């Protein structure tokens, strides 16, 4: 967002966009307005505009019912405005004061007629058991126990009854502590402590919630503590209009509700794309170097370690981390691998784009690689220019607004509701495992002194097989898709492959590759045909997943050996250059082929099978399968 943005101008722009039908533009500016000014006035403005966007924008509808013992109506517009940022359109029904039990018990109550997706229970201890809140010092210990039990049983009955009657998620607030306890400092010295009685209720509430599916505890007591109990309360408004919360606290309650509502609505971030310079570490590695960047346990560089801790915590909830950074890859990798202050290592990232392409391009590639939509991607970058570009070109990507002060970065990440999870699914964990395996492979390559050491470590096995009816589709697909390590880029469909196979001078071979990290599947194809004393290589390709591991040499050695066994004297092939196949350009030269007089479409290469041989690298085990003819 442009720092010079003026609130009045944004409001005008929103209304102009809406009247002209530019809903996406209006929605983006509505998000900007909310970032700039989160308050009741802005919320009211936004709510009336959200109504106009219904049906025009891809919003997730969420019906929220609130059971309460105090005034919460003023929080509703704030909740609706804050939820809009996550493209959630909330419809809220607030129950009458203190009728929560009847509403839960009566299957025909307005609660169930509303058919909520989520129900929030916000009840004050004073309304459940006044004696625990006021006049506590006059209570006998047994009376305290009675009151605590009564409150717990009420909560238990409410939760159990609701669960029997509805599948909606249930969120129950914990009980808040008083600002000043009845006993003063004595409270923690006596057996019948007031604060302990309230804690006991909250502990029991947690236990009950854990026994039911879809019941969650919102730590209201902690929310108040976080924001400062004395500032949170407004005793006068409690007495006059039933609202115990000061005006500035209302937005915090709305945001706390959202920590549950965002994951319940499914509008979560599945991946977090982070910048490196001045985000994950202080300074610019390309300019400041390994010793110059700020990263360590002391002030001020601790801010970046704090952020890294937050990123690690988030990733352990199953959120994939990815890097999108404008840097020389080697410079950045050196920090990621070797800097003593780094808490994150290459293995913690599911994808990396460290190059000089723009970030929009990087995020596009990362989303494609991780196979997730842009609306599941969150983006963290200190640079307002990059954020603005991403916001404009990829409006679905969730931007995390970084505070100016790096010490606040970690808070911003932990505070972002789209990183909340209400449970950890096994899919999330397994997905992380898969990506980290791929990362392990990359890391192993980086750790070895020489390529050969790395190849040996990989323990590669290549199964070379003649085409079969079960591999023909994949072989055709590889000729269609493979662009990089592809010497001729001849595209074939299944039918064309089948015709080759029916001709006895043609050979169609597939390569399947395994290594210590797992099975890559069918990733290579070679097609040859014999012409007099020459074996002609028509097609030779490897999927980009396995480029640069000397598999091409193993495959070529097999072709040469077979051709020699059939009595051919030469092995020959074309390199036909395209925009993308430079990785294969040097292959024939490297393998000992001689360049022949060529034409302007490509280079012709030939190898004399009588003069020498092509060896399979010793670190690749070849398994040859005859296969059946199709």
């Amino acid at each position, binding site marked *: 967002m442009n720092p010079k943005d003026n609130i009045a101008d944004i409001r005008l722009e929103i209304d102009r966009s809406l009247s002209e039908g530019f809903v996406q533009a209006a929605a983006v500016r509505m998000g900007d307005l909310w970032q700039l000014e989160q*308050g*009741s*006035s*802005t919320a*009211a*403005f936004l709510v*009336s505009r959200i109504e106009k966007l219904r049906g025009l924008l891809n919003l997730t509808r969420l019906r929220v019912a609130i059971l309460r013992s105090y*005034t919460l*109506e*003023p929080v509703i*517009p704030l909740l609706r405005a804050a939820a809009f940022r996550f493209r959630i359109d909330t419809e809220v029904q607030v129950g009458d004061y203190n009728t929560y039990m009847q509403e839960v018990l009566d299957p025909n109550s307005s609660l169930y007629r509303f058919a909520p997706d989520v129900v929030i229970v916000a009840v004050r201890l004073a309304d459940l058991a006044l004696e625990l809140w006021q006049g506590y010092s006059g209570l006998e210990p047994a009376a305290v126990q009675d009151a605590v039990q009564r409150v717990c049983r009420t909560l238990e009955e409410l939760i159990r009854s609701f669960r029997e009657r509805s599948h909606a998620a249930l969120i129950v607030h914990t009980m808040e502590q008083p600002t000043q306890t009845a006993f003063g400092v004595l409270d923690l010295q006596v057996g019948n402590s007031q604060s302990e009685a309230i804690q006991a209720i909250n502990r029991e509430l947690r236990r009950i919630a854990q026994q039911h599916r879809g019941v969650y505890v919102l730590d209201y007591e902690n929310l108040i503590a976080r924001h400062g109990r004395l500032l949170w309360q*407004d005793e*006068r*408004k409690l*007495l*006059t*209009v039933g*609202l115990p919360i*000061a*005006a*500035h606290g*209302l937005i915090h309650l709305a945001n706390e509700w959202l920590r549950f509502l965002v994951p319940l609505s499914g509008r979560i971030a599945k991946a977090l794309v982070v910048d490196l310079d001045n985000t994950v570490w202080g300074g610019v590695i390309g300019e400041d170097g390994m010793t110059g960047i700020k990263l360590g346990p002391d002030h001020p560089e601790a801010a970046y370690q704090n952020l890294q801790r937050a990123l690690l915590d988030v990733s352990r909830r199953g959120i994939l981390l990815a890097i999108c950074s404008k840097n020389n890859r080697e410079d950045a990798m050196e920090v990621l691998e070797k800097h003593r202050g780094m808490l994150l290592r290459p293995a913690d990232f599911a994808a990396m784009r460290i190059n000089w392409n723009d970030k929009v391009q990087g995020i596009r590639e990362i989303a494609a690689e991780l196979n997730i939509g842009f609306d599941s991607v969150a983006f963290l970058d200190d640079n307002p220019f990059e954020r603005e570009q991403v916001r404009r070109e990829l409006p679905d990507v969730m931007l995390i607004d970084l505070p100016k002060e790096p010490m606040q970065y970690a808070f911003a990440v932990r505070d972002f509701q789209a990183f909340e999870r209400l449970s950890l699914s096994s899919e999330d964990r397994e997905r992380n495992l898969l990506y980290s395996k791929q990362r392990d492979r990359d890391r192993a390559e980086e750790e070895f002194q020489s390529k050969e050491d790395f190849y040996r470590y990989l323990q590669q096995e290549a199964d070379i097989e003649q085409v079969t009816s079960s591999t023909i589709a994949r072989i055709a697909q590889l000729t269609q898709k493979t662009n990089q390590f592809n010497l001729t880029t001849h595209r074939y469909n299944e039918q064309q492959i089948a015709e080759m196979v029916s001709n006895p001078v043609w050979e169609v071979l597939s390569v399947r590759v395994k290594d210590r990290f797992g099975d890559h599947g069918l990733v290579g194809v070679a097609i040859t045909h014999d012409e007099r004393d020459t074996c002609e290589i028509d097609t030779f390709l490897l999927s980009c997943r396995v480029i640069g591991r000397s598999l091409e040499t193993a495959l070529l050695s097999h072709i040469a050996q077979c051709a020699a066994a059939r009595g051919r004297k030469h092995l020959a092939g074309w390199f036909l250059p395209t925009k993308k196949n430079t990785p294969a350009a040097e292959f024939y030269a490297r393998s000992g082929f001689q360049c022949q007089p060529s034409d302007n479409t490509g280079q012709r290469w030939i190898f004399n099978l009588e003069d020498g041989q092509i060896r399979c690298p010793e670190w690749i085990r070849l398994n040859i399968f005859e296969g059946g003819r199709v």
Partner: protein
Amino acid sequence: MNGVRNEHERASRNNVLERVRQIVSDVFAVPLERVDATSSPETIEAWDSMQHLNLVLAVEDTFDLQFTPEEMELMRNVKQIVTVVELRK
């Protein structure tokens, strides 16, 4: 000196009025041009007791204030809201 201060005070008073008008326009969803110093529950249909609470909270939020119930009672039209805010600032 005095002239400068008066000038400044007038600007700040206008500013409070403008901000209160904007809040009233937002909270009751009426166009800004329809809100002036005399706007009140009599001229704005949506201005009921619950919306009045929303209005008070929005004003508190905007000016970082906390009003007493007595002050809330006084805030019966835009001009009175401006007066209450200015007395507190």
